[in-house]
């Protein structure tokens, strides 16, 4: 059993999850703040 395959799988999973979590939260924040700012200017 190649132990590195398990190590890489675990790190890849955490990497993808972190990128998704940070990316989605950032885009949601930027979108919501831009909409609120645009409504304020109107």
């Amino acid at each position, binding site marked *: 059993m190649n132990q*590195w395959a*398990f*190590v890489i799988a675990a790190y890849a*999973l*955490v990497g993808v999850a972190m990128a998704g979590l940070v990316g989605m*939260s950032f885009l*949601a924040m930027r979108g*919501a703040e831009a*909409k*609120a700012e645009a409504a304020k200017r109107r």
Partner: protein
Amino acid sequence: MHGYANPARFLKIARPATGWLLGIGALLVLVGVYGGLAVTPPDYLQGDTVRILYIHVPSAWLGMAGWASIAAASISQIVWRHPLASVAGRALAPVGATFAALCLATGSIWGRPTWGTWWEWDGRLTSMLILFFLYLGYIALASAERERGGDGRMAALFGLVGAINLPIIHYSVLWWRTLHQGQSISVSGGSSIAPELLWPLPLTMVGFTAIFAAVTLMRMRAELARTKLEARLRRSAAE
């Protein structure tokens, strides 16, 4: 804490803090992961699978810390009706659920080559799985309550009751001595892990914690902006 009950005051701190926490967190995680994958030696017994420890332990810590924070926000909501408490609870839940899921997944990936099984109905594993389901219940309840225009008290009660699971997770390795090993690191008793293997762990612990805080702040900022927009739309519709 009540000084930050005003969302404007909270945002004044949260805006710069988000970037700093994310930057510091990413840097610490990168150094910790590099150390864990490329610098530390393999364990004499577990071999290279010990490297999963550097991402598994922070995931477990943040899965539990996330719910402890929800419980603190719940107390703040029920006792003091803090206006940001329900916002914080809703922002924390998906982040905590992600880390609880990562804890279960990385533990399972570690378990296959080490224990010879992906899953066992062991006390620690089962109580952690229950925590993940509690997160899902909280997310569903809090969003349903928000859609109905509720003040978040039901979700706060659920958050408080669910905190009973935290000591169960912590002491599960002492109460039910099954497959999951006992505590390797404690605040009072030091560590049973060799120093040359241990050093990347504090880096990933602090790094992931900073990322957790940054993501929670981002989600709180998004929700506050949405609330502001909804209030503005309601006002202009009424005029």
